[in-house]
């Protein structure tokens, strides 16, 4: 259980403090500030123990969120709770920043009141919370009958994440497959580790209590179907390949028993935006870019760097917001850069050459060469070469995941699967995409 929750700004000033249990005193707020936020050295651990009280903290931009407890709790659970708290706050007022928190502190207190009671998590689903949170100020007495019964059904209902009686004129569904691809590559071009962590984010604007079914090219399902019928030919001819998902987690609305037995994903969706599933794959990842570095030390005062990037996807697709960051030694005095495409600049404050390319089609290649002049130093320290990192955005899923179908059934209202307008979008972004040099 959680004894209290504090939010600080970067200076350590308390923005929000909510204490749930008697055993957490006011001095706990100061203890964390003095020992962690104002501590000179780096953060040694996300869990800090001060005078028999454990502080769990996460940092979002320059805001510190700390959960405090005196019990021997499950650490992972507290951290998950803090993330959830961040998600809920983001859903309500956008980015977590000092200004936003100050402007919304009444709302945050309301949220904290509903999410935790006596230190125990109660309800953390954004959609369901909307009924309880009254920022616009609903009056309790002149409330209409309908509204009241709606709250009652929400408060007593079995499905905690969706309220009844939702109506839309246009039934729409937006499906985003967001992936971040992580890579660590050796200078010789050998993949040391690579994985994709992806999220399927859905925005649903559907009336009633629809039942949805979501299908993707999961290897286990495709193989099963292939055995069952002759459909595998169709699968092959369309060039679709199935992917092996290492592990995945779902929003609480997904019926896990069905997933375990049939591996089908069926659910009654919450209203509005939510994350349907998270998954991770490690096999057969399409690495959108390959970075080939060449570093040559010419004497003690000069370095020659040549970096080639190759795009490795269909020529018809365009990657965007490409940025390559080539680190330079601390004693760099001057840099001459020549690049064929995009713009490159030496940023002394960041000790790096930043090379930006707006767009790049697939199966292309581009290169940059730089001459780095060094100040002669008597520092014998060898330059520990940090890896070359890269950022980009591509319009496909590097894991190879494809949405096969998303069906909507609503038996009570008169709209069918065909009437729902569905939008699907794939975005692959770089996570930690590093090549050692």
């Amino acid at each position, binding site marked *: 259980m959680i004894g209290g929750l504090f939010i600080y700004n970067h200076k350590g000033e308390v923005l929000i403090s909510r204490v749930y249990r008697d055993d957490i005193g006011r001095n706990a707020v100061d203890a964390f500030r003095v020992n962690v936020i104002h501590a000179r050295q780096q953060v040694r*651990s996300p869990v800090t123990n001060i005078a028999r009280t454990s502080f769990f903290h996460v940092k979002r931009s320059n805001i510190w969120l700390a959960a405090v407890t005196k019990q021997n709790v*499950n650490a992972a659970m507290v951290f998950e709770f803090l993330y959830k708290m961040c998600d809920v706050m983001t859903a309500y007022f956008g980015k977590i920043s000092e200004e936003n928190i100050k402007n919304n502190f009444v709302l945050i207190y309301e949220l904290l009141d509903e999410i935790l009671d006596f230190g125990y998590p109660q309800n953390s689903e954004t959609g369901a919370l909307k009924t309880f949170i009254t920022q616009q100020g609903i009056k*309790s007495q002149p409330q209409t009958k309908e509204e009241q019964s709606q709250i009652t059904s929400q408060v007593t209902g079995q499905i905690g994440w969706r309220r009844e009686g939702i109506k839309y004129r246009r039934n729409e569904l937006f499906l985003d497959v967001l992936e971040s691809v992580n890579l660590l590559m050796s200078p010789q071009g050998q993949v040391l580790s690579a994985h994709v962590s992806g999220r399927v984010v859905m925005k649903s604007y559907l009336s009633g209590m629809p039942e949805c079914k979501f299908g993707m090219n999961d290897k286990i399902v495709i193989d099963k179907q292939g055995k069952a019928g002759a459909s595998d030919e169709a699968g092959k001819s369309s060039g679709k390949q199935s992917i092996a998902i290492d592990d995945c987690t779902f929003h609480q609305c997904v019926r896990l028993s069905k997933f375990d037995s049939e591996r089908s994903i069926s659910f009654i969706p919450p209203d509005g935006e939510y994350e349907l599933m998270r998954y991770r794959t490690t096999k057969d990842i399409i690495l959108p870019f390959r970075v080939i570095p060449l570093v040559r030390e010419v004497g003690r005062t000069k370095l020659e760097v040549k970096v080639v990037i190759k795009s490795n996807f269909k020529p018809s697709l365009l990657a965007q917001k490409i940025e390559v960051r080539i680190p330079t030694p601390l004693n760099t005095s001057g840099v001459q850069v020549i690049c064929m495409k995009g713009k490159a600049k030496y940023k002394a404050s960041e000790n790096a050459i930043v090379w930006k390319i707006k767009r790049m089609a697939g199966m292309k290649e581009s290169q940059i060469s730089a001459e780095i002049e060094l100040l002669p130093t008597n520092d014998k320290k060898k330059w520990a070469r940090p890896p070359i990192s890269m950022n980009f955005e591509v319009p496909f899923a590097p894991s190879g995941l494809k949405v096969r179908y998303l069906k909507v059934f609503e038996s009570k209202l008169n709209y069918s699967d065909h009437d729902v307008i569905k939008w699907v979008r794939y975005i692959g972004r770089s996570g930690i995409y590093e090549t050692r040099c």
Partner: protein
Amino acid sequence: MPYLGCEETVKELKRALSNPNIQADRLRYRSYITRVIRSMTQGLDVSALFMDMVKASATVDVVQKKLVYLYMCTYASHKPDLALLAINTLRKDCADPNPMVRGLALRNMCNFRMPGITEYIQQPILTGLRDKASYVRRVAVLGCAKMHSLRPSTEIDPSIVNELYALLRDPDPVVMVNCLRALEEILREEGGVVINKPIAHHLLNRLKDLDSWAQSEVLIFLMRYRPRGDDELFDVLSLLDEFLQSVHTPVMAATLRLFLRLAAAHPAVQADALLRARGPLLAACGSASRELRFAGLCHVQQVLRSQPALYSGQYKRFFCGYSEPGYIKLRKMEILVELVNDENVVLVLEELKSYCTDVSPELAQAAIAAIGHIGRTYTEKCLDILTGLLALQQEHVTSAVIRTFRDLVWFCPQSIGAVCRAVEVCGENPQDTEGKQALLWLLGMHGEQISSAPYVLEGFIDGIKAELSSAVKTELLTAALKLFLCRPAETQDMLGRLLHYCIDEESDMCVRDRALLYYRLLQCGVDEARKILLGPESDPSMTVLAGRPEEPVGCWASGFNTLGPLAGADAHPDAPPADSSAQHCHSTEEEVVSKPPCQPGLTLGPPLSHEAFERLWVELRVLHRQTLGFPPPAAPPETLQAVLQLVKVQALAFSRCEARPWKAYVCARAGSTLVLAELLHGDPAVPDSQDALLLSVKQRPENLQAIRGFVSVLKTSAVQVQGQKSVT
């Protein structure tokens, strides 16, 4: 952070809140209340406004109500008399037709931290427990726990406990979990909520409906349950199976812990569970958020303690990313050391080598120590790397390498030659205390193989005046003496200087005494000194050379998924996080599960139904029979029932008081055992029961100490009843 002009602010707010014009304008009124709360958050004492805020609570505006309640909860303990004024409004709200308002009022009323509040909240809580809206029931259930925490020393009200046990069957999952939480807090003194077979099975079946927080908590509660027999055990395990692969890391870890606990007698099942949890644990280690990654790594370390081979195929997952924070890198290195085997040693060493040049000296040194650790098994490869690192001529690197050399020489005597050559060519001496000590030790121990040893030592002796650390000085004395014993010609002069300085000028007692000791030892003769200083060492092969022995799973399973694994010894040297409260939790758990005999006291549990009692009574045999030295009490059954309930004995049936034979059936719980008893008087068929009460006790599971406790409780309460009668 009270700032200047705080009194001004309070006065201004007070003026505004009592201004009728502002009171009439709802929005403006609310904005002033918001300002009060804001000042409160900043640490300003605004308790002077209590009266005005109480007035503001009488409103139909829910937002305003929430704000005022927040204020009142904070200051109620400072102004208990004024807070009582607000109670009326709150009680009225508890009967509001809107469940949200009811729940809100009840919750905040329970949050008031003041001593006299209990009498006002008891009734609303009891009503709330039977409310038709689950939202209110959730609040009311936790309200019971809050009420108890306000007056922890008072008697536990058995009716509330029974009600809470009954609510475990509530259709709303959150109500159910809140019941468990509340019971746990209320019954903490007695070992917490009792998980018997029906409750355990009920919880297992409902587990799917719960959200992840509730799931992981319920899984911890289930640790108390001991399935009877292997059949039930495996049924339980197969129900739990899907959660092992699940979803959220905390749930998975909690399931794994429960698995390990339940299957303590089946090592094969435990091993299988660990294998199946490998995927999810690895996923946690690669999670996007660094805190979860950290938690995952710490738990992997725990698993490695018994099954080091389990993760060796996945060693690449533990390679560090450049931008990861230090605490994660340190853990990853520790894990990599554990995972080394013949196949991956080259790649792992290559990887660790690249960390040795990390910007942070702490990490670089940790990486070097890790290589040294691997060196105990793969000596040659590591020696090459370490020697190569000396060429970097970095102070912190050199120091760490020298320290690693010292340990390596001790563990693997075959490396002495290579180490000595490396030290010989090393151009730079470490500057920190520990590094110096290590170098001196090496010079003293293996000085005959290091040709430059006397010169290095001379440098140290010349600089002894500037040396601050007494540990280094002591080490220097020992090293100089040892070197003198094997290379007397080169060393005699400097040893003399050193002893002279240490005895005459040194102010540190320790160093001076050590110098005197060596001086007198040398006076006894060189041979004597050699015998003592260079005598045979302990055989290094006696110590465990490489690899720790694999510990049984039970060693760490009890701390799994708690704070314990996250707190490395180095992370918090001053305060071990497995603090007393944690240990307390553990010990109570242990007691309940494994040592019920130590608990003679009776505990409250879910009430036993008449049918269940009858079934058990027929099933079991009489364990204990004794006559109580008094006739049956002549009080009416209701009184007896009330008296017994006070001592936590449940009465199931009584004969009327003048009936013959007179019979009564009662039952009670002591820890995890259930005691059933029959009281008999005046049955012509049983001679013992003619003039006094005959007590027959049946029990499951058997526990004689519990019976003794039960009998003594029964006797005292009987005496009480008799006493009451004589008074009236």
